């Protein structure tokens, strides 16, 4: 059973400061209207935003940079702490780990970064317009893949460790103060917030089909709906770039038998073109549908993990204002 520790916010900040020497710490900071992970220096610590829904970029960017030389040995890097990871992004790790580490072929570059980082998950105490994690069986608080969880409540940090990596770090955090109060149960105030946020999400998405219903509906869909929505699509690939579980890439050759891995997307024209000009996804409409097939059927089937976490980023990122959830509601009407 997890133990919850309660630290004064000031003590937590002090603990974090003490970690800056041995870790590179990334945490969400608000710049203008944009919440994004920033490399934290001491002066940033008071600005860190806690318990807010997802930063603009998904967690995958820490493990799969947009562009990376995958033949040259990466330089040894200081261990990384990624602080404030929401539940949706934590759950995306299930698919990524299976994809890159659990198979016969391990991707060293992913694996090194993944093993070199500690994930501190954080509850969402509010919601964004397009958040829909609860529709896909997730809760808006860390339950899976977090090494440590953190929540701010009434000027206190409630922290708990969930893995050996998390426990090791916890020892250092708790070193800051003697007599840190410990609870076996989640503080009541926090469970209330959790329940409320969950209800709020369920209410906001009451018309949205769940994962299985979506899978069935996408499989049994008529062509008309894809034609209709694909008409607005401009193949920019933003939906895939911003998606925490989209990982398709291309290897580009460099002299010296080096290869650069560059993130790619099935939404781009020519994604599946072969020599001789065959291209099963030549029509935009097929590429457009492919993303839904991939998310709701292909990846879950192959890796036994969800491939849409309900983060809503693709809806926010779409310059054609295509709303995945509107499409899915229409599909299951």
């Amino acid at each position, binding site marked *: 059973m997890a133990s919850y520790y309660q630290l004064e916010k000031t003590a937590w900040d002090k603990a974090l400061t003490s970690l800056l020497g041995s870790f590179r710490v990334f945490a969400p900071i608000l710049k203008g209207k944009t919440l994004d992970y920033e490399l934290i220096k001491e002066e940033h610590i008071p600005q860190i935003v806690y318990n807010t829904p997802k930063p603009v970029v998904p967690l995958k960017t820490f493990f799969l940079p947009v562009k990376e030389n*995958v*033949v040259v040995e990466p330089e040894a890097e200081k261990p990384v702490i990624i602080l404030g990871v929401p539940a949706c992004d934590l759950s995306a790790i299930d698919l990524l780990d299976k*994809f*890159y580490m659990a*198979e*016969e*072929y*391990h*991707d*060293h570059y992913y694996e090194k970064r993944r093993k070199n980082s500690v994930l501190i998950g954080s509850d969402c105490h509010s919601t964004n317009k397009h958040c829909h994690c609860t529709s896909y069986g997730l809760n808006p608080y860390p339950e899976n893949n977090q090494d440590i969880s953190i929540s701010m409540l009434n000027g206190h940090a409630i922290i708990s460790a969930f893995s050996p990596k998390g426990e090791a770090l916890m020892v250092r955090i708790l070193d800051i103060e003697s007599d840190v109060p410990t609870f076996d149960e989640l503080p009541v105030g926090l469970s209330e917030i959790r329940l409320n946020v969950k209800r709020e999400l369920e209410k906001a998405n009451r018309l949205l089909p769940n994962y299985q219903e979506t899978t069935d509906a996408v499989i049994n869909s008529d062509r008309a709906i894809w034609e209709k929505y694909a008409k607005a699509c401009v193949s920019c690939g933003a939906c895939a770039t911003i998606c925490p579980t989209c*990982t*398709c*890439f*291309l*290897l580009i*050759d*460099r*002299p*010296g*038998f080096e*290869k650069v*891995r560059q993130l*790619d997307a*099935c939404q781009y024209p020519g*994604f*599946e*073109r*072969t*020599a*001789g000009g*065959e291209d*099963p*996804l030549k029509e935009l409409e*097929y590429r457009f549908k*492919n993303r839904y*097939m*991939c998310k709701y*059927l*292909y990846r879950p*089937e*192959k890796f036994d993990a969800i491939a849409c976490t309900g983060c809503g980023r693709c809806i926010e990122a779409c310059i054609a204002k295509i709303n995945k959830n509107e499409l899915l509601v229409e599909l299951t009407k």
Partner: protein
Amino acid sequence: MGTKSENIYKPFKVTLEKVIEESPLIKTFVFVPEREFSFKTGEFIELTLDGIGEAPFTPSSSPLVTERFDVTIMKAGYVTEKMHKLEPGAVLGVRGPYGRGYPIEEFVDKEILILSGGCGLAPIRSLLYMLIDMKDKLRKVTLCYGSKTPEDCIYKPLFSELNKIEKFSTLRTVDFTDPYWEEHVGVATVLLDHVEVDLPNAVAVVCGPPIMMKYGTFKLLEMGFPENLIYLSMEKNMSCGLGKCGRCMLGGYFVCRDGPVFTYDEIKDQPHIW
């Protein structure tokens, strides 16, 4: 082959020993690997032309020979065009072998009907070498091969060699004939009208351009071959070759990991198979 400590993206080096001109568009390249290398028939490699690009190919030589291996390459685009300009001594990179090749254990006690076209004969040649090696355990092997013109027909000596081997026979056709051609004329699938099969003991193997794969499969089904005994080599745009980049999707499959050899029954319900 891949082990957990190896960098899966880093090629090892091979030296080009010899180039054999097969047809105006197709050449066979004989490579000597810098380190131990072996493959099973139907598995493929990723071949890197330094700094230029990488493309998947299925070795066309016998898996039983390990000091060198052949790759037969059709000039089809950017990378393959540059490969066609290579001279002996050139050093290239190889990753692999990858994928699921032909399940030759399942061919024991069977007759094997092979339908192939164009450069699709490359993987088939490697398969044929294995079948020759295990011929005592087979009923018979029939190779049906189609090319555009007599000039485009590759591995010319192979056919007379095969015809001399007990249990083996070959049939050839061309789309466009010339005055010297004495064999069949028409698309590859017409050859299937000229073969006798003992269906309960037969399996079919198809490898060639997409259009031939499609109509060949339909014809085999019409002849009564069960869906699960038609083996197809699927070609897809590939990048990583080992199930990471997501490019080679065939519906829910990654052709590079789950294939490239599939039975028709495994893939028939996936979208856009040909």
